[in-house]
């Protein structure tokens, strides 16, 4: 019994000490982390920065298109039997597509069609395949004429033609289902 008590009291003291120090720790980290559940940029995956707006796949589209201003082209289509609309916004060489989820539209994909824009890592249409692997490393997957990198819930895809990037797409994994 004596031994048990000794162990128990030691453990108690340890817990208490930990409790005091760690509480301070939690407080600190609280300030650096944004509140969870705010649902904006998904820090985990690749994101694209365009006109100062951070765009991540599966993010709510409404605030993004509001911040981007008037598109050069807009298209929407009813899906069969009214299961929501698929929408496409075009801003010059950038195409934004959405899919309906509940009563919101989420980002399905962002496509970079010309060299007026580049990824935050500096790859643009016309970069060579070697440029891509230099920046992003070995691709997660390769299929036909494209290489893909998966990070978080985002697939970053480079289509290649004649050894050069012909288009770039940030794709939601919804597309692979």
């Amino acid at each position: 019994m004596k031994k048990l008590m000794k162990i128990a009291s030691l453990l108690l003291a340890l817990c208490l000490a930990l409790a005091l120090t760690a509480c301070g720790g939690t407080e600190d980290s609280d300030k650096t982390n944004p509140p969870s559940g705010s649902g904006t940029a998904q820090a985990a995956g690749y994101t694209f920065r365009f006109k100062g707006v951070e765009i991540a796949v599966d993010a709510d589209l409404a605030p993004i298109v509001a911040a981007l201003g008037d598109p050069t082209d807009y298209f929407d289509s009813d899906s069969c039997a009214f299961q929501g609309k698929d929408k496409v916004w075009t801003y010059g060489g950038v195409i934004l597509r959405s899919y309906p989820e509940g009563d919101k539209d989420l980002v399905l994909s962002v496509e970079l069609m010309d060299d007026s824009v580049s990824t935050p890592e500096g790859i643009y249409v016309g970069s060579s395949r070697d440029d891509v692997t230099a920046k992003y490393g070995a691709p997660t997957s390769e299929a036909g004429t494209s290489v893909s990198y998966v990070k978080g819930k985002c697939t970053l895809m480079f289509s290649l033609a004649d050894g050069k990037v012909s288009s770039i797409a940030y794709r939601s994994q919804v597309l692979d289902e």
Partner: protein
Amino acid sequence: MKRKAFLSGLAVFLALAAVLWFCQRLLMPKYQTGIVEGSMVEEYYREELPHEVLFIGDCEVYENFSTITLWENYGITSYIRGSAQQLVWQSYYLLEDALRYETPKVVVFNVLALKYNTPQSEAYNRMSLDGMRWSGSKAAAIRASMTEDESFVDYVFPLLRYHARWSELTGDDFKHLFSKDLVTHAGYYMRVDVKPQTGFPPPMVLPDYTLGANAMGYLDKITALCKENGIALILIKAPTEYPHWYDEWDAQIVEYAEKNGLPYFNYIGLRDEIGLDMTTDTYDAGLHLNTRGAEKMADYFGRYLTENYDLTDYRTDPDYAAVWSEKVKYYNDMKEQQYAELAEYGHLVSFGANAIEG
């Protein structure tokens, strides 16, 4: 005493079963107004006479071919076993199901659905599967179609799926508790309004243009099933351009058709020959044809059918003529009603999106 307890238990159990059955009828969506696509699969079983031509596939068949025109112009008896976003395996099992009732001479399959290789959406699954009569085909169709969150039991007892509708019941649910109205014309979904095609956004670049192995596997099964039953299979791609049908996909189908000795027509390139004008012949800016377009399409396709297949002209058969004249009447009545609504309101009010109840 024991017997009495058993009997009262049995009575209560039967009463519970009856109430549950009634609730199930009440709570299942009726698909009578607005979203009528959910009624299509079920309506097939109301057909009295067999058909020589059977279409299977998604909206690209049930909105693009007027079965009534096929009858009126060629005496072809046809039916469209279509449903919204019908996936290839659903087409296969719906065909298998149809073969329990009849053996058509020609089956027409629209290839767009081959782009989907995996189960997609619970809502569409429900519309394509709930209406099927129970059989091994239905069970297999369910198993092939379920998304991750779905369970088979929900199909066996649809009440488990639709129980939460108690707070959203509408007049239709009571009115159509035991009887439903026809919503299609031998499977054809009528829309007479016009919204011209203006253009489509550039198609998405894909990482891989190979059609999925699962989807192509079911196309193989459709081909084999038709061969087994002596049915001629025709592959088509409807003349509408959106969702985009990639050239890479088309090449694969051309190759497949050649290998299997099947005719394949991509009607996108044949629009001029058919006489389609996408400024007047579509009701939703080019996604689907309207009735004007569907009649042109049917006339063109009917000619091909009569020239190439040994089909019977049933217009002279009094039994068929009687049944089909009713269909023609319903078709013309609905057309008249839709045109009247267009004239009065400028758009349709009891059909399509505007008719969806609150």
